C-alpha cells in the first residue's frame, strides 16, 4: 500500500514546501541513526546551511524550554536523545542495551588509540608498559576500535577508533577530544622524541634491537 510521494493526498504539501523546523522534527523522530546535514538537506530539498541553522535553533529551543529530550550533533549526525537529567526515569524502562563498563586497562588503551591513531598494538603496549592484546580484542569486539590497515615498514596492524566510539563518548568528532598537552608537561618535546626520535627506545622501529614486545 505504498504511496508515491509524487501524488500526494489532498491537503499535503510537497516536501520542498513544508515548514523546515517541524519537517526536521518529524524526520528525526523516525531515524534510527544520526542523520547528517547532507542527508537531511537532500531529503528536505534545502541548502545544507539552512538545515544546520534550523537544527541548531531546534536544539536551543528544547534546552530553553527544559524539554526531557535534546537534539544533539554526535559522531557527525543529528539525533534525538533523552536528556541526562532524566536518566533515573529512563533507566527504569531500558534495562537492556546498556553495555558493561570498561576496565581501567581498556579505558587506558582506548585513550592511547584515540590520540595516537592509527597505532599498532606494540606501540600502545609501549605507552602503557604492558601487553594490551587482550584489551584490544575487547575494544574490537565492543566496536570501539577497528583495524586501519598495516604499518608499511613492519606489517603491524594499525588500529583506530570508530564512529561508534564517538557516539558512545558523545563527541562530534575526534577534534573534540580533550587536549593532551595540559596533562603532559613538555608534551611536545616528549611526543616528538618518542614518536620519531631515538630508535633504541622505539620497539616499533624496524631496526630496533630487542623487539620482543613487537607482537604484531
Amino acid at each position, binding site marked *: 500500500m505504498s504511496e508515491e510521494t509524487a501524488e500526494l493526498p489532498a491537503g499535503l504539501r510537497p516536501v520542498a514546501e513544508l515548514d523546515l523546523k517541524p519537517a526536521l522534527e518529524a524526520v528525526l523522530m523516525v531515524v534510527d541513526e544520526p542523520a547528517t546535514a547532507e542527508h537531511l538537506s537532500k531529503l528536505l530539498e534545502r541548502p545544507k546551511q539552512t538545515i544546520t541553522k534550523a537544527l541548531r535553533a531546534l536544539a536551543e529551543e528544547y534546552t530553553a524550554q527544559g524539554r526531557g529530550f535534546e537534539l544533539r550533533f554526535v559522531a557527525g549526525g543529528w*539525533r534525538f536523545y533523552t536528556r541526562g537529567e532524566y536518566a533515573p526515569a529512563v533507566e527504569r524502562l531500558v534495562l537492556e542495551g546498556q553495555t558493561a563498563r570498561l576496565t581501567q586497562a581498556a*579505558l587506558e588503551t*582506548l585513550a592511547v588509540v584515540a590520540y595516537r591513531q592509527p597505532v599498532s598494538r606494540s606501540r600502545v603496549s609501549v605507552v602503557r608498559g*604492558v601487553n594490551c592484546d587482550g584489551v584490544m580484542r575487547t575494544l574490537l569486539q565492543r566496536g570501539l576500535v577497528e583495524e586501519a590497515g598495516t604499518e608499511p615498514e613492519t*606489517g603491524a596492524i594499525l588500529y583506530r577508533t570508530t564512529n561508534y566510539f564517538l557516539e558512545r563518548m558523545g563527541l562530534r568528532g575526534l577534534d573534540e577530544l580533550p587536549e593532551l598537552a595540559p596533562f603532559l608537561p613538555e608534551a611536545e618535546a616528549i611526543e616528538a622524541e618518542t614518536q620519531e626520535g631515538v630508535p633504541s627506545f622505539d620497539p616499533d622501529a624496524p631496526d630496533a634491537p630487542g623487539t620482543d614486545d613487537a607482537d604484531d
Partner: protein
Amino acid sequence: MSEEEPQDVPDGVFKVRLANFEGPFDLLLQLISKHKLDVTEVALSKVTDEFMAHIRAMGPDWDLDQTTEFLVVAATLLDLKAARLLPAAEVEDEADLALLEARDLLFARLLQYRAYKQIADIFNRRLDDEARRWPRTVGLEPHLAELLPEVVISIGPEGFAKLAVKAMQPRPKPQVYVDHIHAPLVSVQEQAGIVVARLRELGEASFRVLVEDADNTLTVVARFLALLELYREKAVALDQETALGDLIVRWTGGDGGTQPAVTDEFDRPPEPPKPPKEEKA
C-alpha cells in the same frame, strides 16, 4: 587522588612511607617527575615491600588495576634509577649520549603513561555521562511500517540453513599475529661452545676479545648471555675494575672434558605473549 592527603585513611589507595617521603604513590611520582625528588634517593625495594604489604592487607579484595599500575610505574622507576646510577662519565662516545637520552625518555614514558591515565579518567566520566542519555531508536509507526515492501527471501530453506551454519561458525577472534617474530638466529648454546673453547685455550680473556669475531650484535648478545650461564655454573669468573671498563673473563671450569651445562633458556622460541603480562580484558 588528591595531592594533599596526609593521613593513612583506609581507602584502598597505596601509600608509600620512606625516610624522605611519605604519601600516596602517585604523589611520589609527581615529585620525581617535577624533579623535586631524586629517584636515586628513593628506596625502591622499600616501595615494593610496602606495596606487597598493602596488597596483602587488602586480602582477597586487591585490585588488579592498581597492581598493574604499580608494576608499570615501579618498573619504569627501576629503569630510571638504573640509568641514573650509571656513572656519569664525560659524554664522549655515542653510547653515553644514548644513555643520557635514555634517561629522559624513561621520564617521558612515565609522564606519558600518567597523561593517558588521566585521559582515561576523562573518558570514563564521559562514557558515564553519556550513558545517561538514550538515543531515540523506536520502531516505525505502524502506518509507516506498512509502507515497507514485502520481504523476499529467495535463498530457500536449505540456503538458509547453510547461512545459519556460516553465521554461527566460531569466528576467528581478532588475532595476535606473531608469525613474523622468528626464533633467534643465534643460539646461545652454540655460542657458549665457542666461548668455552676459546677460554680453555686462553685461560683468561676480556669480553672485547671474546666477541672480536662476532659479525653482528645478536652474536655479541648471545655470547654475553652464554657468559652469564657459565657464571651461574661457576665455570667462569668475571672481573671488571672500573665501571664501563673492560670485562675480564677467567676460566674456572678446570681441564676436565666435561662441558658445563648451558641451558636452552635463551634459545626457545618466544612464548606467546599470554600470562603473566597479559591483562584481564
